[in-house]
């Protein structure tokens, strides 16, 4: 509190030089890089162990299934990252996915000749609309996003059930070209996965290199300071929910293309997997840090765990336990890193003072 009257110029200079200048640049980047690296390492170890037990795990078909299986979760996790970075959460993504998927199927039922890109755009638009409902309610009601999106989780699902009224839509009801989107590969890589990669790259780069992206981190890091520095917090948070909804809409269309068989229950419970993927991927649940790349890796890791435990013939119960342990480990790691960083920074400024 009162350095004021006691600090002589000399020990002041000592404090400064013992402080910050010795730290090499890119400290945060290195920390993040380490996080993504450790995810990759975990993923590699998992694949290695599973392959040693069963060499078909790395066969072309199995890898293709894996990539196909994680694409939708990756897209949702990236959308969730945008939201969590601003210190919010979107629990309605599973319901938006279900609603959009069923809507896409019904659309083809009503207009069989519809070109699939039109259906894709309509699906994204419907998702964005759902996201706008979330964002609008949060802005107007000034209630935490957790509560609002918990409400719309049930509301959107309810609309889905009302609309479906017990019906099921089958692959036969949808055009072949659309279904091919769900299974086609380019050079052995599923198109679905390529779409997910594009989404990750675009959002990840936006978050890192654009003013709008950095402002999302600022909002999550210290909302009051964000407001004082002139960031339109309300508008940005609204946009983030629209984006998350749009990505859930995209995921919904891709879900329809991949599975073909649709009922009102599609995507039930997916939202928790999505949040888990983001958290495991290093997106801090209190906002302000984490990357889309990390969240995507988290989604890939969770999907891989699922299929490798199946290959290793391990009880599904253990699969849940492993995912739970992983989340706790991720959060524990974050906390540990934060404490160590804080301790080191404190130590440096205390030494000279």
């Amino acid at each position, binding site marked *: 509190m009162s350095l*004021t009257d006691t*600090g002589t*110029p000399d020990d002041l200079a000592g404090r400064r030089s013992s402080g910050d*200048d010795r730290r090499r640049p*890119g*400290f945060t980047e290195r920390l993040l890089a380490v996080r993504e690296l450790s995810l990759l390492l975990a993923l590699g170890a998992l694949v290695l162990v599973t392959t040693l037990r069963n060499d078909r795990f790395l066969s072309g078909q199995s890898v293709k299934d894996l990539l196909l299986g994680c694409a939708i979760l990756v897209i949702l996790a990236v959308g969730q990252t945008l939201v969590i970075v601003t210190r919010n959460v979107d629990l309605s993504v599973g319901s938006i996915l279900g609603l959009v998927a069923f809507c896409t199927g019904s659309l083809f039922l009503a207009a069989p000749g519809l070109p699939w890109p039109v259906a894709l755009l309509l699906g994204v638009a419907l998702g964005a609309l759902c996201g706008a409902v979330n964002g609008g309610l949060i802005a107007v009601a000034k209630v935490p996003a957790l509560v609002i999106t918990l409400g719309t989780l049930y509301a959107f699902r309810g609309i889905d059930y009302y609309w479906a009224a017990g019906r099921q839509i089958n692959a036969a009801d949808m055009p072949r070209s659309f279904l091919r989107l769900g299974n086609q590969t380019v050079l052995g890589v599923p198109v679905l996965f390529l779409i997910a990669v594009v989404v990750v790259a675009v959002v990840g780069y936006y978050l890192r290199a654009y*003013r709008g992206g950095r402002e999302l981190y600022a909002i999550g890091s210290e909302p009051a300071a964000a407001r*004082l520095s002139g960031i339109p917090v309300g508008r940005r948070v609204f946009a983030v929910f629209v984006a998350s909804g749009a990505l859930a809409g995209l995921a919904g269309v891709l879900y329809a293309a991949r599975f073909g068989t649709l009922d009102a229950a599609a995507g039930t419970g997916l939202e928790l997997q999505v949040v888990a993927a983001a958290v495991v991927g290093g997106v801090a649940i209190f906002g302000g840090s984490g990357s889309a790349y990390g969240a995507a890796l988290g989604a890939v890791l969770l999907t891989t765990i699922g299929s490798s435990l199946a290959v290793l013939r391990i009880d599904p119960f253990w699969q849940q336990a492993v995912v739970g342990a992983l989340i706790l480990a991720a959060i524990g790691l974050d906390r540990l890193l934060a404490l160590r960083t804080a301790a080191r920074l*404190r130590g440096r*400024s205390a030494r000279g003072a």
Partner: protein
Amino acid sequence: MSPDSPGADRAPLLVLEGVTKSFGAVAALRGVHLALHPGEAHALVGENGAGKSTLVKILAGAHAPDAGRLALDGRPLELRGPADARAAGIAVIYQEPTLFPDLSVAENIFMGRQPLRGLRRIDTAAMNRDAARLFARLGVRIDPTRPARGLSIADQQLVEIAKALSFDARILVMDEPTAALSGVEVERLFGVARSLCERGAAVLFISHRFDEVFDLCQRITVLRDGAWVSTDRTSDLTVDAVVRRMVGRDVSSLYPKQDAPLRDTLLEVRGLGRAGVFSDVSFTVRGGEIVALAGLVGAGRSEVARAVFGVDRYDAGEVRVAGEPLPAGSPRRAIAAGLALVPEDRRQQGLVMELSVERNATLARRRALSRLGLLVGGAERVEAQRWTRRLQVKTSRLSAAVATLSGGNQQKVVLAKWLATEPRILIIDEPTRGIDVGTKAEVHRLLSQLANEGLAILMISSELPEVLGMADRVLVMHEGRMVRELSRAEADETSVMFAATGQGAAA
């Protein structure tokens, strides 16, 4: 710089006219006017609660004035938000730093204005370079790429200053920027402020440190109780004159404290200290006595009160109640020993806003009123009625939610809650902040009555008239230390204000 600097006679850059702002029933600013001239540093001084920070928030675009006009270069200026203020070239350095802990120092400086390269991408290298250049200009070494988390308060303040510099502000507002800085850093900051002035910018400087005010500023404006008092050339003023204008009021008639017979010492605090917050605080309070703890905001007064009551821990010293040592860190033991603490922030610490008046009034006595662990409604009501009647709480019914009451009546409910525990020692933090004049007088009369009945009262107050009118003795804190003890006869506006601003030898 001499007061007759070249900018002194140019037309004002920014003018405020008749600016008024109220929060609920409390008028924070009443018809304030202020003119900032290019090339000049202008000081804004006043007691705590005089309205300085509200004025800063209005200039920053964070509050909209209820009435009055702003003009920049003679043209009307409307600030709808902080972004507008920035666009108008107004930079504000707040008392409390407002940084993003997760982002790098350079990003904190340039948030929303990062240098760009192709495709509107952020040019990180250029941003770090610019930040380093700003720090070089300030003469400090802070790594622009490190996260803001973990910076010392002084370093955070320097980042704020770099931020304000970075957008070549035409008007720089500094709200007590020097509180956390050392002498050398203050000199550098003043160097930067002077060079900004030389380039035609205007500086508004808010500080309680008169040596700094007289060193930097060419004009001084005094605010009191939200109203404009005077604006003068610094060369025409003395520290004495400024202090007198800050406090000048007739106080003796407003706050009567009857002389009560002094009884035994009830509260004794010896050598109390908490690293970095306060140190070596000693005082006693006797039954029938009101002792005021005066000082500026941030001097550590509330922290001492919280430590005595056991909410916060302390590292050194001891607290005795009626001669018996009071164990540290246990509000429950403190209540049992007869202590009561009425906190400064009623909404957050004193009341459960959604619960009824009677529930709140009896909250601290739940145990005594319950039978077999169950609260009996009847007992609660009788108890609540007794105290709310004595305190004249104005409420339609006792079951009304506390949130529906006025500030003054909320304060009475908090008092009722603690008086219902029948304490021997009452610690009350800012007893009349944010309440209207009529209720103020009632609270004061009540405190005087309680002292008469033999209570020992420790009153923390930032309002000088209240301190001078109510207290039998005044203890003055400055930056975590007890700097002066004044008897009722010795205490006047000047002696308290001098001690509170750290100029203890005067008066």
